[in-house]
């Protein structure tokens, strides 16, 4: 299967600070990828590297087999909806569509017109007068109507009310189904992503903590609770992601491919949010350079 994003040791440094470090990804096509992480983790940096708004400081990244923003053909393959859905406040909705038509050879004018009509956006309205949800939908239309293979969205619903949020995601998923897009969607809330994503990347403190198909991650991660136990004494093959203890009880989040036979443990399923929180959890071993003494796990293929 062709990879839609391939990154090797990708890093971006600003002055002395590494906004993204040592990022290695291999994302297959046809997925809706959720990129989760707290604010400042490096999500926007990673997405900007993917669309070519930034150049890497170290490592490399290839999108759909080409260098990001290398030439018009490459730019046509990737659609981008940036944070806060920027639009030209002084230009009307119709002007934005004209912008898309003039600057993109692959522009689908009928699709754009239909979408605007169905959304109920007035073409004569200036973008500065639209609500947040309407601007997000306009930006999404611009991204979809150029008929890309990959659509990248940076926290598209963060500033939207719940109804606008739901409508945006519905529109996005519909377009994904109709045009067979690959999508990368970032958010600092897992709840936005749970329904839509089938591939997950967790980014914390400029590093990728986990990346893989959601189904596989949920199948291989379990919550174990039982009597107080030292996590280091678990059998090999069971990697501890997070641990918490009381006097009498230990609760572990582990990742393992094999079944768990120890009868002392109560095994339960994790929700996606639990999983993400486990990887995002407080790490007392992380120093300021982001060096983490917890295992960084990747999907085994």
């Amino acid at each position, binding site marked *: 299967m062709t990879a839609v994003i391939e990154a090797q040791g990708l890093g971006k440094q600003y002055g002395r600070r590494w906004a993204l470090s040592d990022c290695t990804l291999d994302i297959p096509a046809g997925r809706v990828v959720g990129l989760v992480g707290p604010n400042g983790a490096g999500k926007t940096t990673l997405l900007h590297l993917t*669309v070519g708004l930034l150049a890497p400081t170290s490592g490399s990244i290839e999108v759909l087999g080409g260098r990001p*923003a290398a030439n*018009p053909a490459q730019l046509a393959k*990737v659609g981008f909806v*940036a944070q806060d859905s*920027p639009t030209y406040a002084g230009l009307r909705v119709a002007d934005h569509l004209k912008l898309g038509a003039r600057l*993109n050879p*692959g522009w689908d004018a009928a699709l754009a017109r239909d979408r605007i009509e169905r959304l109920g956006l007035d073409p004569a309205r200036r973008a500065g007068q639209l609500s947040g949800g309407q601007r997000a939908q306009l930006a999404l239309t611009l991204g979809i109507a150029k008929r890309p293979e990959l659509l990248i969205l940076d926290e598209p619903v963060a500033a939207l009310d719940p109804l606008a949020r739901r409508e945006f995601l519905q529109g996005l998923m519909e377009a994904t189904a109709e045009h067979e897009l690959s999508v990368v969607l970032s958010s600092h809330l897992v709840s936005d992503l749970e329904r839509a994503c089938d591939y997950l990347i967790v980014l914390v403190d400029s590093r990728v903590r986990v990346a893989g198909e959601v189904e596989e991650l949920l199948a291989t991660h379990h919550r174990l609770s039982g009597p107080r136990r030292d996590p280091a004494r678990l059998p090999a093959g069971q990697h501890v992601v997070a641990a918490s203890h009381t006097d009498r009880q230990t609760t572990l989040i582990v990742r393992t491919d094999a079944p768990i036979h120890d009868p002392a443990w109560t095994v339960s399923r994790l929700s996606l949010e639990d999983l993400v929180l486990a990887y995002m959890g407080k790490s007392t071993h992380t120093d300021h350079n982001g060096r983490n003494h917890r295992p960084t796990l990747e999907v085994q293929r």
Partner: protein
Amino acid sequence: MIWLTWRQFRAAAAMMAAALAALAAILALTGPGLAHDYSTGIAACTQSGCSDFVRHFFNDHQGPFLAVTAVVLVLPALIGLFWGAPLITRELEAGTHQLVWNQSITRTRWLAVKLALTGVAAMTAAGLGSLAVTWWSSPIDKTATNFPKMGPLLFDTRGIVPIAYAAFAFALGVTVGMLVRRTLPAMAITLAVFVAIQIAMPLLVRPHLLPPTRSTIEITTSNLDDFTMGPDHRIRVSAKPADTGAWVLSSHTVDASGHAIDSIPPSPSLSPSSRACAPQQGLSPCLAEVTRLGYRQQVTYQPSSRFWPFQWYETGIYTALTLGLAGLCFWRIRRRLS
């Protein structure tokens, strides 16, 4: 991209067009009358009355003269400030660069079209303004004895150099905007740098574009600039070269052996009680005596015949600077700029 550039530039272009149209209308209405007044006045004035006519004519029109000259002087700076600096900073501040640089054109092409179209508009505006003012003001320029044609004020605001200044100011604005990334600081820095360069050019570069002419002239009443006799009977005197449009770079009185002096030392034939320099005699015999004693004025100047060569040289310099800045912009826009 051409459509988008125009669409974003529309309002600014309209304002400039309106302002230029207003200026052109005023100049067109008053220009012919001005030229007529001048030509009839010159034809009618007698030998000695001409200097009076020239003085009166200039004083009558000094206000508008300075006003239109100021317009041409300030126009390039305004272009740099309002067309150049916000070109990129506006997109960065609104975040729309994330939208437009993701369309199917490269950043290089985006910048190229924007620079080319807006740059041409800038040069056209400056050119029209300069052309109109040069035409309208030519009678007054001939009577502006304190503002020689080669001097900094008129040289900067006539002919073709305003076009080059406008292109340069525009390119400077865009470059500063790209480096600073915020509109107001970019505008301030652009203005500061542009003003500094506009002061540095006549101060440091223009005097040396061609070796200046140095000549030693006799001081007579026709080229006398200033004559003062102090209480100690020392005479301070200076003269201007015959070429009234020349740009005098330095001027000092020299004695018979060629040494520069501040003032002519007192001597019996040059005292108020002498036959030559008695106050009621007029200056002519006194100056003749000064000349007889060997005093001359040594002037270093750029003659007005070099007006057009200098205009082309300076246009060339500013064009090179503009192209250099444009190159810097193209190089820079392909790097990190998010």
